[in-house]
């Protein structure tokens, strides 16, 4: 099982805060090995997910550290997708 989190305008446009995926049993995700593959699979949900996740500026984190798409996912990971940050 991996947990997937969405924040800010991405969370709003998807209308989704959080989602749980079982990489070994959820059929659509069985071939997903890397973070980039997870993003591509999630983008297939519908046109809205497609366009929202296509944003090249989107940041991705695994276990609360920003990483790139080549990161290999493992059971128990906490994955997050979010737009560039604007705090401070």
């Amino acid at each position, binding site marked *: 099982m991996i947990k997937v989190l969405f924040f800010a305008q991405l969370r709003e446009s998807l209308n989704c805060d959080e989602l749980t995926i079982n990489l070994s049993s959820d059929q659509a995700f069985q071939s997903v090995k890397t973070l980039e593959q997870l993003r591509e699979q999630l983008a297939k949900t519908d046109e809205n997910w497609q366009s929202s996740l296509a944003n090249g500026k989107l940041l991705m984190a695994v276990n609360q550290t920003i990483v790139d798409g080549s990161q290999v996912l493992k059971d128990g990971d906490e994955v*997050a997708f*979010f*737009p560039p*940050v604007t705090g401070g």
Partner: protein
Amino acid sequence: MDEMISVQTQDFDMAAEYQALLTNSDGTSNSNDGAVVTFVGLVRDYNQGNYVEGLTLEHYPGMTEKALEGIVLQAKQRWPLGKVRVIHRIGKLALSDQIVFVGVTSKHREAAFEATQFIMDYLKNDAPFWKKEVTNIGERWVEAEDKDVKAQQRWDKL
């Protein structure tokens, strides 16, 4: 106030934070450090082309603290610092409200200035906070700015 990093809804008290920076953990005064630099960021009335009435700060609980701790650690490895304090507020904020506090002490002013600016430049790019502003044209998410990316990148060259 013993924590170096706080992410909180409540306001902070600049005077108390300043005093804490000058006080050692045993209550004696920190007489090693001759320089104290502070930064406070506030909700200002005009941003990215519109008048701002207030904002809501969203964050990624857990990662925010981790990101801020990582930034402070990098600063401490780069400069000889005394005390470092970072506070970032979340939730609903009104015009002129305080958003963020960074305070740094050091023996020398240059280290205190540079470390404070470094922490803010990294926070602006790496700490998972997002601002949604209430403006004269309605609500909108603040856009990240290229100048903040450049401000961070210049530390790679120094």
